[in-house]
């Protein structure tokens, strides 16, 4: 560290003063994070291993493996995995269409802005929009049954179940993937040209250069998509009126007092979510570190 030299020519600070000055700048940040992020999280953990007459106990974590709660995790993970994987594949294809020069140039900024908007358009209004399109009397549902004689709801589809949630979540997952991948794909074109210049076929390029370079960004982006849908509450709640067995919905039921079960169990459910999210996030950070090293 270079010492800041000022016209005031302050004498070198002693250690105590330096720590104190530094503390003042970090204090609001640290205090806020501790009070509203760390303590509540720790509180949940403490609540999940104590509570009731049990004293220190793993009872509630054990209860997570009861079918009802295990199922909630299973559905949550499946929903997140499905929307992350489909969103990732479709998003990459769409991003490549935008970047690869297949689409007219003037469409690019439009697509990117739209992706920015759509990836932030979620929750209650998104649920409404899909009800108006794919609900029992939605525009698309009616169109299909009138013109193509295809009645979605007679074929077991319901917007208010798992498949409906997947379709709806994709509305923000795909654009997010587009936004995450466009910068990485933009970089591909220069490597693509270099490979062409060296006589590589498109296949050779993608196999030896393109995919190895994209592997980590793809993984990282897919993980982000997973996390993005794993914690989602409002969209699922609005679409299914809280009737789907997802972990956030179950927690919400306890918290709002609609369904009463043990508070400690809700805490354990929440801690489980944080653990899964932390794992996802840690893997993401690890992949991202290597990506940053490459993208220069």
């Amino acid at each position: 560290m270079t010492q800041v030299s000022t016209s005031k020519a302050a004498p070198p600070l002693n250690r105590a003063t330096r720590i104190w000055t530094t503390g003042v700048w970090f204090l609001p940040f640290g205090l806020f994070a501790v009070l509203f992020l760390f303590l509540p999280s720790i509180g949940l953990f403490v609540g999940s291993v104590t509570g009731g007459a049990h004293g220190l106990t793993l009872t509630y974590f054990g209860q997570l493996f009861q079918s009802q709660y295990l199922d909630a995790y299973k559905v949550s993970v499946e929903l997140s995995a499905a929307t992350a994987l489909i969103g990732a594949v479709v998003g990459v294809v769409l991003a490549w269409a935008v970047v690869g020069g297949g689409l007219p140039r003037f469409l690019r900024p439009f697509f990117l802005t739209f992706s920015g908007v759509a990836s932030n358009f979620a929750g209650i209004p998104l649920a409404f929009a899909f009800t108006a399109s794919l609900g029992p009397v939605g525009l698309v549902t009616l169109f299909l049954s009138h013109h193509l004689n295809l009645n979605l709801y007679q074929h077991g589809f319901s917007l208010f179940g798992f498949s409906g949630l997947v379709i709806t979540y994709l509305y923000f997952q795909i654009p997010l993937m587009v936004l995450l991948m466009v910068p990485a794909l933009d970089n591909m074109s220069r490597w693509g040209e270099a490979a062409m210049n060296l006589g590589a076929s498109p296949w050779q390029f993608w196999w030896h250069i393109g995919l190895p370079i994209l592997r980590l960004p793809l993984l990282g982006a897919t993980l982000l998509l997973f996390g993005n849908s794993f914690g989602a509450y409002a969209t699922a709640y609005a679409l299914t009126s809280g009737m789907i067995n997802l972990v956030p919905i179950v927690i919400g039921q306890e918290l709002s007092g609609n369904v009463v079960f043990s508070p400690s169990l809700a805490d354990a459910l929440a801690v489980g979510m944080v653990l899964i999210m932390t794992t996802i996030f840690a893997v993401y950070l690890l992949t991202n570190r290597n990506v940053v090293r490459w993208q220069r």
Partner: protein
Amino acid sequence: MKGSRIWSLIVGVVGLLYFVVPLIATAQFSVQEGPSKPFWAAYSSILADPQFWSSLRLSLFMALSAVVIGLVVIVPAAYWAFLRVPRMQSWVEFISILPFVVPPIVLVLGLVRLYGSGFGPLSDRPVMLMAAYGVVSMPYLFRSVDNGLRSMDVRALTEAALGLGASWPRVLFRVVLPNLRTALLGGAFLVFALIMGEYAISSMLGFNTFGVYMLLTGQTRAHAAAALALISFGLVWLLVGVMQAVNRGNVTIGGAR
């Protein structure tokens, strides 16, 4: 080359349909309040609803306080780490993006459990809502503060200001913040977009925010709900559009899921 162009076009058109059709359907639904009513009936009923305005005001106020809280908390720490304590930089960053791993529903559960009662001002519901929104917006605000600090020569500016005899508050308010302005604006607009539609936290804490108002409307008035969805989409478009114009090409995730 020709083949791939056609494929790109097909992909583009299908993608476009998937993203535009729900909006068209919503728009169409919102103007069919009833055969005897004019097509703007749903919109006029919303605009005439005092609840609409009060919930919008509440959400706007909450978004503004989240931005203010976030900045008060993040700017000094990020600035000082950048200027004097580089090894703290990655910590500030890490803690700032940590809220990603705590879903809103978990955050609000944790806050209610810990401060639900008997913690003085911390147990006030408005304080809890503001704090939760502040936490939720930390990652976005940190990104923009960090980008802003990186894009200007903070050290030189600070040293120049100190050399000219400025006090620390003066350096912060007259030199650093004005130069961060555009970068901060981008993050702030994203936080607005995020909090305008937020539902999980405010409904659990019992507030009639814009998101909660939308859900309640949907339970009783379907056409008005469609109109609201469209208004909300326009609002997000406006905020994100401004955000992208301000700091272009910044990938961010957000939204009230």
